[in-house]
């Protein structure tokens, strides 16, 4: 790493401060005021929109294989999602997904 300690701490402090401001933004600035129904309707879908959007590229183009689609990781992603949807249980989904990955990597 070519970064000196001062630069590393600069990144830590700015990213830390910026992240806190992102998290505090609405809770801090809007507080108790009510928001229009269409905003609330959009926000209901935040989690089911953001997390799949972050996960899909990691599942289909994993960095561990240099961005090449990997059958074991693809199967593990699909297994995690399917088990989670069927059982409605996050722990079962995690165990099922990790197990699928272990078996897939062992076989490949």
């Amino acid at each position, binding site marked *: 790493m070519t970064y000196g300690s001062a630069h590393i701490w600069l990144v830590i402090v700015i990213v830390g401060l910026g992240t806190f401001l992102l998290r505090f933004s609405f809770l801090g600035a809007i507080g108790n005021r009510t928001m229009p129904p269409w905003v609330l309707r959009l926000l209901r879908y935040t989690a089911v929109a953001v997390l799949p*959007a*972050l996960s899909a590229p990691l599942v289909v183009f994993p960095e561990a294989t240099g961005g090449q689609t990997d059958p074991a990781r693809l199967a593990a*992603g699909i297994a995690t999602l399917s088990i989670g949807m069927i059982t*409605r249980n996050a722990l079962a989904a995690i165990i099922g997904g990790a197990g699928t990955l272990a078996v897939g990597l062992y076989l490949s």
Partner: protein
Amino acid sequence: MNNATPSRSRRAAALEASRARALARTPAQSVVHGAIQSLPFLLVIVPFGLLFGVVATNSGLNLAEVMGFTVLVLAGASQFTAVQLMTDHAPIWLVILSSLAVNLRMAMYSASLVPWLGAASGPSRAAVAYALIDQTYVLSIDYFQNTPKLSLPQRLGYFTGTSLVMCGAWILFSMIGATAGRMIPAGIPLDFAIPITFLAMIAPALRSPAHIAAATVAVIVSLFLVGLPAGVGPMIAALLAMATGAAVETVMIRRRGGSAS
């Protein structure tokens, strides 16, 4: 189950019972409940935290710098982004910008908690903001939405419970990873901890056609936009997905004859 009706009514009865239990909890009991419901996610937070400690140390960060990231940023995906880009000798402004882009979703989490926690005191809201990570958010919003009549102290208690376990474990295991991480066998695919956690968190929430439509759009659009700089593609995909979810919900309300405001 030959017939859907008894199963549906059984599920509804179970939901009613869990709501009644939630409403009967004192704030302190809500803290404990939040902590207990976070425990399954330790299975992911623990290896993820260890992994950050190991990766950051191997990239040349010392223990203080690793802990600076973990305590001051407290956001796994963006911490990995920053370390990765610094290792790749990216310019400092790109490191900062990319890491913050990964955390843009936190502003949406913040906004979606306003109806539930917006009435809390300033220091409480600042504390919630500090501990607002994917796991504490998803657990809490699900609990709040399932039992809308919870009091503010009950909601804050539940969030506190999830934060103590999730953020505490993140900090502790990053430190263990940074100090003892070289003992972890190299063959374990810890890289996949991130997508497995995220998928396991959202799958149980895919409970309506609108939720499923939103998630589907998120997946397809984010895959098309992989070429964009870190964090940008997922953000565009998420915004389109949220619009899709809201649109499908509106259509379904109209079809049922309700008025969609």
